């Protein structure tokens, strides 16, 4: 047998294995190619472009000129900017904690296998299924100051209800009320978290003589803290970006689209929308958008940092 013609079996195996691995890698990249292209064209590209745009005076009518930090200076001198921050924070600070408490409370109520529990779960969850636009239309009617259901109900118990939608001081609370009707979504997440707490922990606590209260604070809450953290983080991020509901609630003959009486519903994203799509000040609006992004990122980072203190994670199950 000619020695040079002999191929050492292990080398051949490695070459075959290397070829297969390379083929698999190429196919892998091909399969995820749509996402990669999308990432560049619709995410990373626009992301960077927005950053650059914020330093120009680009409007739909003229080519962009580099203006440096001028947009940002303008932003910090703009009354509407500070108003939009106030309105946004008002909404976040009111709707997120209230929503979490109510959502969690409902989940606790539902966390029992009693007859009819599925009906109640559906009852609480269904409102959050209704599309936002019809849902706001419904609330425009319910909150109507003269014929609405809410004021009618209040008057029947002797309270004269406010002008929910036309008074500048009540428009944001109206929006918060609407947002609370939607807690079904987060309730479902809490419920799943509650149901995944192992029964053995409660039993062990009982054996140690713990009553319901201590079981709640020392078993339930720690075990569900990751879920709470998740809902809190997502809740804050999304309420910072409130738009559709606010836009519709504030629609009406107030001049500027969707800002409500005395701009009481002028939220950050709505301001961006107005500046960008009403005034076509793309450069300025991009600066506003970037500031919002930075704020959201900072808030999220602070939350992540604080999470170490109060969020309790079980050890990762091995093999995942």
């Amino acid at each position: 047998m000619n020695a040079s013609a002999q191929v050492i079996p292990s080398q051949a195996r490695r070459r075959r294995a290397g070829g297969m691995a390379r083929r698999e890698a190429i196919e892998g990249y091909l399969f995820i190619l749509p996402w990669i292209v999308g990432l560049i064209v619709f995410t990373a590209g626009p992301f960077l472009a927005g950053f650059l745009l914020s330093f120009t005076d680009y409007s739909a009518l003229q080519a962009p000129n580099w203006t440096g930090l001028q947009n940002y200076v303008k932003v910090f001198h703009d009354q509407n900017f500070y108003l939009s921050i106030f309105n946004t924070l008002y909404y976040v600070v009111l709707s997120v904690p209230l929503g979490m408490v109510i959502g969690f409370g409902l989940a606790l109520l539902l966390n029992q296998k009693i007859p009819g529990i599925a009906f109640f779960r559906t009852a609480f969850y269904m409102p959050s299924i209704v599309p936002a636009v019809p849902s706001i239309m419904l609330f425009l009617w319910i909150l109507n100051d003269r014929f609405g259901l809410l004021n009618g109900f209040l008057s029947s118990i002797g309270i004269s209800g406010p002008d929910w939608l036309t008074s500048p001081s009540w428009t944001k609370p109206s929006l918060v009320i609407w947002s609370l009707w939607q807690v079904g979504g987060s309730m479902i997440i809490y419920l799943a978290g509650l149901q995944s707490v192992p029964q053995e922990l409660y039993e062990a606590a009982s054996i140690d003589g713990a009553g319901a209260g201590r079981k709640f604070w020392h078993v339930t809450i720690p075990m569900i803290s990751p879920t709470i953290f998740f809902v809190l983080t997502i809740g804050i991020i999304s309420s910072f970006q409130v738009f559709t509901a606010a836009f519709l609630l504030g629609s009406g003959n107030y001049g500027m689209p969707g800002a409500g009486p005395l701009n009481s519903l002028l939220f950050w994203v709505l301001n961006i929308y107005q500046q960008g799509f009403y005034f076509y000040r793309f450069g300025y609006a991009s600066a506003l958008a970037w500031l919002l992004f930075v704020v959201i990122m900072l808030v999220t980072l602070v939350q992540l940092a604080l999470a170490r203190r109060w969020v309790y994670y079980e050890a990762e199950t091995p093999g995942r």
Partner: protein
Amino acid sequence: MAGRVLRYAALIPLSVVFLAPLVWMLSTSLKTDRQLGLWPPVWIPTPPVWLNYAHAWTSAPFALYARNTLIITATAMLGQLLSASAVAYGFARLRFPGRDILFIVVLATMMLPGVVTLIPTYILFQKLGWLNTFLPLIVPAYFGAPFFIFLLRQFFRSIPMELSEAAKIDGASNLRILLQLILPLSRPALATLLIFSFTGNWNDFLGPLIYLNTQDKYTLTIGLQVFLQQNSTQFQYLMAISFLMSLPIIVVFFFAQQHFVRGIVMSGIKG
């Protein structure tokens, strides 16, 4: 025992509070002008004015709006399904350098506030000449939405590798494995994807608001908002259209509750 009574004592009034607005929507839609302002409120108008629905539907081109919404929703759903399946398959079943890092990027973009890319993306579509067409609302769906990629990838990973190994030995390509093995086994996850894609597109407001400028292109969300501007006192018509617009989603919900719940829980599990 007392605990149970207390629980029902809380659950029943609360569910009344949560359901009342929906009942009210239906009830209002069947009222006459005069009945709208009555107090105590009429919960079941007699006789119910079903004609309101016909009036409301024909008082604005809602059939057109519905058609537009359906076209956009259906094509976007198809795109989400195809792209998320392919990309998730790559992340879940294939090995390639940088796979795990890239998947972390997918997760990161899930959390990205959309507002930052809003204006540059608009400018992009403007340059492409796609303004006032359905394209900006459809085309991005064909490139893989992070949440759906995540959803499917988790599911695909739970399918034993031995099955695809066996198929490979039989000479099947990755594409065949995806189409004939993985997808049929993933029906629950695909159902969840389709449901969330449906609701996301059906309910989309900001997208149509900035990209669709002429009435012939409006979707139901925009059409309903324009209708509000023009008929701000005829709440029975407003409620009728609102109810019609919510109906498809409520129906889907009743048939596929567990898929809804799974989608929401999946997004929570990741946290």
